């Protein structure tokens, strides 16, 4: 899967870079997420899937690859085209290779039910995308916490 990761914060790939799969269809949100990672000082290789189908394809590739190439964290928008984030999350938790991989669900939804559903499907954290910049950058800390 390493060829699907593009380097993000810190420039060139290093052994310490965290492999993150980001499933997000909104360009502005992808930009903000990259920025949050940079602000947090997280060195990472970021693979971006623009829809649920692409996310599942990248995960399949990762499953077929050596474990050292698998994503260490998944950032998952719930509202994805083609295959929605809920289905991707359910697949992740059913797949042995990723059953323990931290998943942070990203959403614009303020419905408590959506949060409950995401946690029931196995998300480790739920980040409601705020509209203001400073609050959005708190995602960096959420990611760092999920990585442990």
């Amino acid at each position, binding site marked *: 899967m390493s060829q699907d990761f593009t380097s993000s914060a810190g420039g060139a790939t290093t052994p310490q870079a965290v492999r993150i799969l980001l499933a997000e269809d909104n360009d502005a949100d992808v930009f903000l997420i990259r920025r949050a990672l940079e602000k947090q000082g997280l060195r990472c290789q970021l693979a971006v899937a623009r829809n649920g189908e692409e996310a599942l394809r990248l995960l399949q590739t990762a499953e077929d690859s050596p474990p050292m190439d698998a994503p260490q964290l998944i950032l998952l928008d719930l*509202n994805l085209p083609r295959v929605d984030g809920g289905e991707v999350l359910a697949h992740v938790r059913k797949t042995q290779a990723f059953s323990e991989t931290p998943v942070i669900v990203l959403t614009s939804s303020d419905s408590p*039910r959506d949060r409950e559903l995401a946690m029931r499907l196995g998300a480790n954290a739920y980040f409601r995308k705020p*509209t203001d*910049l400073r609050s959005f950058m708190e995602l960096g800390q959420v990611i760092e916490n999920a990585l442990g």
Partner: protein
Amino acid sequence: MGEEVYRLLVGAVHDIRSEERGVMTSAQLLESILGDSLPPDARALLERLIASSARVSTILAGVSRYAAALHSPGYSFRKVNLTCVVDAATVALEQEIREAGAAISYSGLPEVWGDRDQLVELFRSLLDNAIKYRSASSAKVEIEAQQVTGRKQDDVDFLFSVRDYGMGIGQQHQRSLFCPFRRLHGPEIPGVGLGLLICRKIVEAHGGRLWIESDTGCGLTAFFTLPVPA
């Protein structure tokens, strides 16, 4: 609200919200990048852009809550302890309550059969209004409940009152209280003009009625009924 319209509304709110987030955060980034090099008139324009964007976000949040209130198939009914519901509503308004120095009193509220999240939204919205439209001298809100005879002879309802001692609303304005996006105040008091309408829809979805009693300078009491669980 039909399922098709509900899905359309939820989808539209989501997509508009995503783009609005792009506008807001880009404007804020521009502000931080340009910093002090911005001439005053350009800074004023950027601040106006950010303020308008924030307003769009507030309107979308209101529309989202309205859609959820109207979408009764989405309600999940179970026994709900209303003291816990009001506790949750006050937690959601913690900052507003603290800044206003508001005193919210309630005790011995009953259990009802209802959707917990919507009931939290009901009380949150009523308390938010009471705090926003408080008078200079009082930010006190009292919540009470009693049993009354329902519309049919054998029915028993709970009658709730949420009473504040704030600005109140004159009789001449009360007709438009439940009209969407109709506000009596300008931007000096934040709001969208959906709060009471949302509250009424939530209560009606629970089989109850909501009305208000108020006058200028005399505070406002929101009354609503909810059926007693069988």
